[in-house]
């Protein structure tokens, strides 16, 4: 029996792994390979291999049909968020481009993807199951956070961290002086 079905699962795991790595840590030192890894994983999952079982084939085809409209949809929403008014300054070109892409995404979804034909029960049950995991996870986090802190001495800032903090403080103080 071929073991190529693992490619699909590894691809999905890499998507989650890449997204987690990309969101980890402070903004100035996030993993650079996180999002490329997620994209690579998405490509692995998109080109589904042989050897998948019935439910996996259904999940794989649902994923592929969704990606056709979801990727332009997310690009459109990102463009809209960049063009939306911030402090009453709007970027109409970005808004127009964003809404065009979102409209195309909706068209592709409604025309080719048959989005609302799937049985709603399985979606609701899945969301309910994920909520159970979420509640258990929150309880575990609360338990960890409620434990007494250890007596270990926190290490001082490293040279690079000191430089970063100094730079941020001096930049902000300079801005205050300018105002």
């Amino acid at each position: 029996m071929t073991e190529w079905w693992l490619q699909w699962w590894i691809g999905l795991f890499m998507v989650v792994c890449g997204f987690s790595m990309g969101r980890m840590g402070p903004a100035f030192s996030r993993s650079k390979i996180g999002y490329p890894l997620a994209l690579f994983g998405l490509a692995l999952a998109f080109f589904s291999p042989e050897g998948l079982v019935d439910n996996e084939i259904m999940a794989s085809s649902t994923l592929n049909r969704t990606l056709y409209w979801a990727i332009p949809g997310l690009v459109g929403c990102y463009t809209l968020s960049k063009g939306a008014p911030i402090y009453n300054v709007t970027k109409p070109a970005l808004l127009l481009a964003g809404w065009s892409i979102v409209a195309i995404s909706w068209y592709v979804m409604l025309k080719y993807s048959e989005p609302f034909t799937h049985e709603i029960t399985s979606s609701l049950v899945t969301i309910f199951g994920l909520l159970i995991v979420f509640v258990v996870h929150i309880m575990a986090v609360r338990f960890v956070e409620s434990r007494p802190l250890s007596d270990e001495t926190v290490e001082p800032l490293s040279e690079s961290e000191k430089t970063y903090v100094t730079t941020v403080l001096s930049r902000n103080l300079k801005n205050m002086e300018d105002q």
Partner: protein
Amino acid sequence: MAEIILTLSGALVLGSLLVLINIFSATHPYHKPLPLVISSLLVMSVGLYISMATGPEGATVLDSMRQSTSLAITGLIASSPVLFAILTLLMVRISFWRNH
């Protein structure tokens, strides 16, 4: 009914896997992951047990996990049009919102 229970067990396994992958890929020196790993493994075991009990006889743990988790993935992806509709409404709001 069996498919609903299988989907629920798959969702438990899928959610636990998501938590575990997140813990291992986003770990850092100040993390205390052990209780989180244990709780996720416990939930995953419950999900696996239910999927083994509900699934076809003679199926291995891996087969049961594949079947139930892929059902949950289908259910999750199938709800994405609703999420996209909500996202579109939010986009309408921020596009025409004015800060007074």
